[in-house]
């Protein structure tokens, strides 16, 4: 297939205050594969995740992502991102958050699709209360809907199981399985049990 999606990093490094968090990280994943990033707390997992989705500029190296026929197309819409430090716009309801997100992406808003997605992650689409009033587990579910609504080819999950109960974790497992069918899955975690069969692994503890 010439039109395959790939995600690769070459010689990535990042330093803050002149100190390297990690250096010389390289990887390459193809469509339908999973990239697993491990390392202890403070090893730079989140930093690497932010570099992959091109929010953070690496101090060294570069990330390439896209279809083979549209080289260099590293737009924001290629990525969906879930993490504990991602914050929703808390004065808005879950549905409003999704509408705001699609608007800021500059894309068409489809309320029915959004409602279906909220139900899929286990939330009531008609709930009008602002996200501020949600429990942390419910907030985590909103983030999944927020990350999936624009059908990103690359889904990045930082600590995917954070704040979730057993039912939530099993929902996440089915989301991960669906993403592997649809594109690329990237997971950063302390607990390798979160991911069944990673295709590519990056251990940041070895890259300090």
């Amino acid at each position, binding site marked *: 297939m010439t039109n395959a999606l790939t995600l690769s990093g070459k010689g990535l490094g990042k330093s*803050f*205050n*002149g*100190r390297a968090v990690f250096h010389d990280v390289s990887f390459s994943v193809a469509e339908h594969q999973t990239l697993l990033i491990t390392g202890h707390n403070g090893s730079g997992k989140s930093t690497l995740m932010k570099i992959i989705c091109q929010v953070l*500029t690496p*101090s060294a190296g570069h990330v390439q992502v896209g279809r083979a026929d549209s080289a260099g197309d590293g737009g924001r819409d290629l990525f969906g991102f879930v993490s504990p430090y991602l914050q929703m716009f808390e004065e808005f309801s879950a549905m409003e958050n999704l509408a705001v997100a699609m608007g800021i992406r500059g894309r068409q808003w489809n309320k029915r699709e959004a409602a279906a997605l909220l139900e899929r992650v286990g939330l009531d689409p008609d709930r009008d209360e602002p996200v501020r009033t949600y429990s942390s587990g419910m907030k985590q579910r909103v983030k999944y809907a927020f990350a999936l609504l624009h059908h990103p080819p690359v889904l990045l999950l930082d600590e995917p199981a954070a704040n979730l109960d057993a039912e939530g974790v099993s929902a996440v497992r089915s989301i991960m399985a669906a993403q592997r069918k649809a594109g690329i899955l990237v997971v950063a975690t302390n607990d390798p049990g979160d991911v069944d069969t990673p295709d590519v692994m990056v251990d940041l503890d070895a890259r300090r």
Partner: protein
Amino acid sequence: MAWKIFMGVLLTLVIVLGIGLPMSPHPQTWYELPVIPGLEEKARIIFFHVPTAWLSTLAFLTSMAYAIQYLRKRDPLDDIKSSAAAGLGFVFCVLATLTGAVWAKFNWGSYWNWDPRETSIFVLLLIYGAYFSLRSAVEQEEKRAALSSVYSIIAAVTAPFFIFIMPRIMTGLHPGAKGDPNGAGPVVEFKMAPPMRVIFFASLIGFTLLFIWMFRLRVRTAQLEQAHHAKG
């Protein structure tokens, strides 16, 4: 090394001759400075005041140039240079303000008159002050470098507006301002007698060399400090 000795000799001569040479209304010999009506002995400040004002502007532009360079290349050394230039610019800006204020007291009757040039240097002082307040308010080095670079560029593109605004708001008192019988213009043009002119330009060159020397020293110490921090 040689250029530092040259600088030392040059500045010594400027100080000795600028202060020491006698003034006379009708200069007879090469070493007598002519009297400028209305300025008399007070004219001697031109050898020290103008170079400091020139350096505060030069330093500001140097700082902005390295700020642009930093944003393009993200080399921490460019940020060190940018802030070193700003630090020196601030010192010379204070010196220019003080020498100007002292002179204004004797020539115009009060230390501060909100003449266009006084207002401009006041704004330059404010910009330097704001730049260093910003630097001290950001802890992370990369962020501090990027934010202060952006600020110095924004300040540098808005400051030139004063050139157009000042003449519309106030008339100047400063030599070289509009209405000065000796000629108007953005750069002060004096009808300087040859000996004065020689000392004046020697002073400009000497002070510029002094700036380059101090700038390199500051950059080196900042580099050493940073290396020390990274180790410890």
